[in-house]
């Protein structure tokens, strides 16, 4: 049996990371927990409220609606982006001069700052001067994302698909490139169809990177703020007010720090639970 070297001093090398995480994550999180059980009117004066804010948020129709909208949005973009990303990755060349061209084109949307993406799509989709908005209206479809909830949803989803499908493409492409040629040769000898190659070689080999892609897209889209904020500002009405937009409205718009803290903790727990379930389910399939 191999003797494992025991050297606990290595833990000191982790200390800087622990310090950074403490400052940018743990201490703010602890403060949020403290705020969530108190009421404040500023000036560092706090009044004990117990679990009142949690009860209020859990019974608030406003929170329920925002949560439902958030889940619907995340569900839709996952259902579009993951299959689309895999499909695009499958069509990309594996070798030759076009590889770098494709990779750069794919990486471009990821490099654009989120508020710029929102502003771009805002102008692009305007019904009177935007290219997309004008075109849709020109086809005889009444489209105005600043007034119609369905149009606002359509534009927000289209924007997210445009911005983030590339991430799935790049990850899936990396997974595809790591498959040795021998697998394909074996498949050809067996006379496997293109579907069989995809189902029994490419998909299983992409499982790990797709797990990461789904987790990243799930967490990012569940916390989405900047793009819909710039594009629709949560409107029309509350049609695209997702959880984080609602949270900022409560925390900064109304300065209700207590309810906002309680809401962010519930929000955090939901993300934690769903991420854990995703990860566990996918890793369990891996083990079998």
């Amino acid at each position, binding site marked *: 049996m191999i003797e494992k070297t025991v050297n606990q001093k290595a833990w000191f090398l982790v200390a800087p990371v622990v310090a950074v995480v403490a400052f940018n994550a743990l*201490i703010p999180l*602890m*403060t949020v*927990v*403290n*705020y969530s*059980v*108190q009421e*404040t009117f500023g000036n*560092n004066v*706090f009044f*004990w409220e*117990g*679990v009142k804010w*949690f*009860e209020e948020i*859990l*019974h608030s129709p406003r929170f329920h609606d925002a949560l439902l909208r958030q889940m619907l949005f995340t569900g839709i973009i996952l259902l579009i982006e993951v299959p689309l990303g895999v499909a695009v990755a499958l069509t990309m060349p594996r070798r030759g001069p076009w590889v770098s061209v494709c990779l750069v084109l794919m990486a471009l949307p990821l490099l654009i700052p989120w508020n710029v993406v929102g502003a771009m799509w805002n102008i692009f989709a305007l019904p009177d001067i935007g290219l997309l908005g004008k075109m849709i209206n020109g086809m005889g479809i009444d489209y105005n994302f600043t007034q119609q909830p369905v149009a606002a949803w359509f534009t927000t989803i289209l924007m997210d698909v445009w911005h983030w499908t590339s991430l799935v493409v790049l990850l899936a492409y990396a997974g595809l490139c790591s498959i040795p040629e021998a697998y394909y040769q074996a498949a050809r000898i067996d006379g496997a169809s293109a579907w069989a190659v995809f189902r029994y070689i490419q998909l299983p080999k992409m499982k790990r990177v797709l797990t990461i892609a789904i987790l990243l897209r799930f967490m990012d889209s569940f916390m989405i703020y900047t793009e819909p904020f710039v594009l629709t500002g949560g409107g029309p009405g509350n049609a695209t007010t997702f959880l984080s937009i609602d949270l900022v409205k409560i925390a900064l718009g109304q300065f209700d720090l207590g309810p906002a803290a309680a809401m962010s903790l*519930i929000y955090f*727990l939901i993300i*934690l*639970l769903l991420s*854990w379930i995703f990860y*566990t389910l996918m890793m*369990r399939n891996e*083990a079998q």
Partner: protein
Amino acid sequence: MFLSWMAWTWPTVAFFLFIVLAIATMGVWEHFSPGGGPRRGILGLDTTRGDRLFISLVGSAFIHLGWLALMGTPLWGALTLSILFLIAVFKWV
């Protein structure tokens, strides 16, 4: 005061002390019985002690939220359920 912006209260101090103690206990447990006690429980998941603690804590949080939503305060019932949940998770999961 330096920490006044963090708005500490005794209940939240106690809560975080409990979390720190739980993690420290795991460290001591690991020292006396290394390896984390991996096994496959009734859910078909491969878990170690750390996983079981995580499941217990997240589960307890949701038990408390659920109790608060359905029954309201006081939360003693939720606390009892959470302790039962913790015992069950450490025994079977």
